[in-house]
């Protein structure tokens, strides 16, 4: 206990720079409105006494020390004193007791507050007894009178529906019970300083309401004492304190710990502080939440002001009642605020049933108000991958969004990021602080660039300080001495570049929105997967239908053709020319139909057979196609040229050869020019890295061209743009097969044409990784399932 042995009562200097360390609980004196005895039990031996005992007991301290208190009290009271001490030991609370002392001048009545010092031995306890007498001015109330007055106050306080009501009732009731000039509540707010939230005062006094007071106004050790001792009364600020003698306890050897003593003398710094602001008496009632000081009910009087035990007890009890009410009311405020947010969230979540992200964004745009109100934001940016973000309400300029998005995405450890001062991270954000100073960002998906950021504009705040916090002890240069201020120097602090801070509940809402969004993505992906599978199955069914149907169609067709042949063979001599001609027409027709069926079979086979992916130098594929068309090319005077290099791609070599085959056949067929040229090569598309992996091939001819109004018909099966017998006939399935092969390779085909000048077909092959990329084709990712 004796860590402050070097501490001196007399001549010591304490100022604001060291008042945080001032051991005010060891002050060694009491206020003069009561006296104090330190008594050893069970002997009753008085170990220490305050010097002012003489005015309460007509006995100087020296006459009391070393003697047993039982000499002045009757045995019954001795017994009660022992019982209350035990009760105090058990409850760790200070216990009251009515006690009469039999003094030479007669019997005198006291209210005694008793509590033990920490135990020094099992056999002997040491108790601190604080004596006060009833006030002359206000005779003690009977229990019934007290109960009546007190319960109506408690009732009012308990009726409070909000924190504001509670504080208003509290100051009202405390002022009416105690009669202090000014009663107010200041609570500890963010940053540790105090803000006045309720006040009752004399009409002629300046209001404190709304003022902020620096953290240093209540030093740390004072806060500890406030939490320990729920009520602190200074009846007469200027009255000199009465020292306790001897200074050190003869049993423990320590200074007396006055933490729990209502009579504890006032520290010189605090006396100076109160005197400076013309306060003659003060009282503080602690409001404690979760063991921490939540705030204080403070009372000031401009003349000395005494309160008897009953009123002090009532005030302390009110403090406890209020402390009990605070968590409930705070939760209520929080819950109500959360509910308000949640109503908006629910409306926003309804939007998530949108079939795709684009529709979702439109929905959010139309319900901007809910989307912002659900986190009490004024603006928002919804960013999807590399698309331009959707901006709602007040936001930073568009060009500033992307670095904010990246910042949010880089907070890998937490999906939600919040700041009320963007400019602290990005100093240039000060330029648009009036638009957005605070942001609440959330990465909607773990790895993709789906980010929402909500914004709040600058809350230019004027903080009215009851004292300039810059002049607090911690901002002082060493050696400089700060004495308690002479008055409340009103000073307005202007806070810029900050928004109102984001509450935990708002971050929670952002998190819930994220979870709902992630579930949406997961659902979408599942749905897309199911649809893909269904589509694949139905495609497969269609393919096998086409195969079976074509196969079964071939048999009767062959029959017709064969019997027509037999007819000509067997009855040639009996048929006239017309009959023979008609039979030969019949055979031509069956021939054409057979070709159609063959194409259908071919097409369905392209769809059914698995791709045999292998690295294929496309130059070789083109050369193979040309080899198989050698006669055709020679006959039609067509010349195929490969322009530049063709890459090596992983693809189905046979099928890709067929693609070139069919495109070359088309190019020769639909060409009336004598010298037909067919050019094959790749075009480099400008743009991102995707195009490098995905070259665009072209097959260009100088043929008749395709009227662009037939653009959509070109790839339709059996759709011919020309008469049956024109341009060498053909089944009309060639380009359909080409498209099917390309699509099975994840690519696209399109064309450009100018009538009479030629046609260029372009295509890409997605599944074809360039072989100079070290990836294994078997690892090639499946086509991306996107929700947009």
């Amino acid at each position: 206990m004796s860590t402050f042995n070097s501490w001196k009562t007399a001549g010591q200097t304490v100022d604001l720079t060291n008042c945080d360390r001032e051991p005010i609980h060891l002050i060694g004196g009491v206020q003069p409105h009561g006296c104090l005895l330190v008594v050893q039990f069970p002997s009753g031996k008085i170990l220490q006494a305050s010097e002012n005992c003489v005015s309460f007991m007509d006995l100087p301290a020296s006459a009391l020390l070393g003697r047993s208190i039982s000499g002045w009290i009757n045995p019954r009271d001795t017994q009660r004193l022992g019982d209350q001490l035990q009760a105090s030991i058990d409850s760790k609370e200070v216990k009251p007791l009515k006690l009469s002392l039999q003094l030479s001048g007669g019997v005198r009545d006291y209210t005694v507050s008793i509590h033990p010092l920490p135990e020094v031995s099992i056999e002997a306890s040491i108790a601190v007894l604080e004596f006060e007498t009833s006030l002359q001015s206000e005779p003690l109330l009977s229990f019934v009178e007290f109960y009546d007055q007190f319960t109506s106050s408690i009732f009012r306080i308990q009726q409070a529906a909000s924190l504001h009501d509670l504080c208003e009732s509290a100051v009202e009731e405390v002022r009416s019970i105690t009669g202090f000039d000014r009663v107010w509540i200041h609570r500890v707010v963010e940053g540790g300083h105090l803000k006045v939230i309720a006040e009752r005062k004399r009409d002629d006094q300046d209001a404190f309401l709304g003022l902020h007071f620096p953290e240093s106004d209540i030093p740390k050790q004072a806060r500890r004492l406030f939490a320990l001792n729920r009520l602190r009364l200074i009846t007469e600020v200027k009255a000199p304190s009465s020292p306790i003698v001897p200074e050190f306890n003869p049993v423990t050897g320590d200074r007396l710990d006055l933490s729990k003593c209502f009579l504890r003398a006032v520290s010189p710094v605090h006396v100076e502080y109160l005197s400076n602001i013309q306060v003659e008496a003060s009282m503080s009632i602690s409001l404690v939440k979760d063991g921490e000081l939540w705030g204080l009910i403070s009372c000031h009087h401009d003349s000395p002001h005494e309160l008897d035990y009953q009123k002090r007890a009532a005030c302390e009890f009110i403090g406890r009642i209020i402390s009990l009410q605070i968590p409930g009311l705070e939760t209520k405020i929080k819950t109500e605020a959360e509910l308000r947010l949640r109503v908006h969230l629910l409306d926003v979540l309804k939007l998530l049933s949108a079939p795709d992200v684009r529709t979702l964004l439109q929905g959010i745009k139309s319900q901007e108000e809910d989307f912002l109100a659900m986190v009490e934001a004024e603006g928002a940016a919804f960013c999807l991958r590399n698309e331009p973000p959707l901006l709602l309400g007040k936001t930073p300029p568009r060009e500033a969004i992307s670095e904010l998005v990246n910042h949010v995405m880089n907070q890998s450890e937490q999906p939600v990021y919040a700041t009320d001062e963007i400019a602290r991270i990005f100093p240039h954000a000060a330029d648009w602080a009036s638009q957005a100073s605070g942001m609440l960002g959330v990465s909607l998906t773990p790895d993709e660039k789906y980010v929402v950021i909500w914004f709040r504009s600058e809350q230019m705040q004027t903080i009215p300080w009851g004292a300039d916090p810059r002049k607090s002890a911690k901002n002082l240069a060493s050696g400089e001495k700060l004495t308690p201020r002479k008055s409340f120097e009103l000073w307005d602090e202007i806070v810029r570049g900050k928004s109102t801070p984001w509450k935990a509940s708002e971050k929670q809402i952002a998190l819930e929105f994220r979870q709902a969004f992630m579930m949406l993505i997961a659902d979408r992906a599942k749905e897309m997967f199911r649809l893909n599978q269904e589509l694949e199955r139905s495609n497969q069914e269609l393919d096998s239908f086409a195969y079976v149907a074509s196969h079964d169609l071939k048999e009767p067709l062959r029959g017709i053709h064969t019997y027509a042949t037999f007819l000509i063979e067997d009855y040639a001599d009996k048929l006239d020319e017309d009959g023979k001609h008609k039979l030969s027409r019949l055979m031509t027709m069956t021939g054409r139909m057979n070709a159609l069926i063959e194409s259908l079979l071919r097409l369905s086979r392209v769809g059914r057979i698995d791709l045999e992916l292998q690295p294929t130098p496309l130059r070789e594929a083109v050369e193979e196609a040309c080899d198989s068309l050698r006669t055709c090319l020679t006959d039609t005077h067509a010349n195929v040229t490969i322009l530049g290099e063709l890459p090596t791609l992983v693809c189905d070599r046979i099928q890709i050869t067929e693609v070139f085959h069919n495109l070359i056949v088309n190019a020769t067929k639909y060409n009336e020019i004598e010298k037909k040229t067919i050019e094959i090569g790749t075009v480099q598309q400008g743009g991102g890295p995707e195009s490098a992996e995905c070259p665009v091939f072209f097959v260009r001819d100088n043929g008749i061209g395709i009227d662009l109004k037939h653009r959509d018909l070109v790839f339709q099966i059996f759709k011919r743009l020309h008469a049956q017998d024109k341009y060498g006939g053909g089944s009309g399935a060639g380009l359909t097969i080409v498209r099917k092969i390309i699509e099975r390779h994840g690519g696209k085909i399109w064309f450009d044409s100018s009538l009479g000048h030629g046609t260029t077909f372009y295509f890409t092959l997605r599944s074809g990784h360039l072989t100079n990329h070290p990836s294994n084709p078997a690892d090639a990712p499946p086509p991306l399932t996107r929700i947009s």
Partner: protein
Amino acid sequence: MISSKDSAKAFASRPVILHVEDSEMDHEALKRALHKVGTIAQLFWCKNVDDAFDYLHHSGPYDQLPAPRPSLILLDLNLPGENGTSFLQRLRKTPKFSSIVVVVLSSSSNPIDIERCYDLGANAYLLKTLDPRELQPKILSLAQFWLGHCVLPSGQPREVGESAHGAVQGTHA
């Protein structure tokens, strides 16, 4: 179900072709083609797989009817009931008939069908064409090769698992 016009004995030395085919028209086309290329082979016709096995085992109606062991089976795939590949599979598993030359004659150009037939032990695979006249050159080559140039297995029944030595002894006996 026998197409021979004369008694079986008279043709004992002529090669026998068994045509397994459900389509009369296709059989007619084959008959014409064979006739046109001037082969001396005797042609027998079975319309389904069961019929073909009855023929080979001399069971069912072939108890009484002549059913000489074929040198060559021409097999259609698309048959009513059991199909041609099933016939081929069963035939190759039957030791008595496993060595008979089987040439598939089908309209299916599906690589899967072709692959499967060779896999099951077909000796050749010919495509039926739309025009029956295109069958003639194929049948001509077929007859020249299998019935002319090739030395075909004798078709003597041999026991499964019997050693070569035992087979020689059997011939002597």
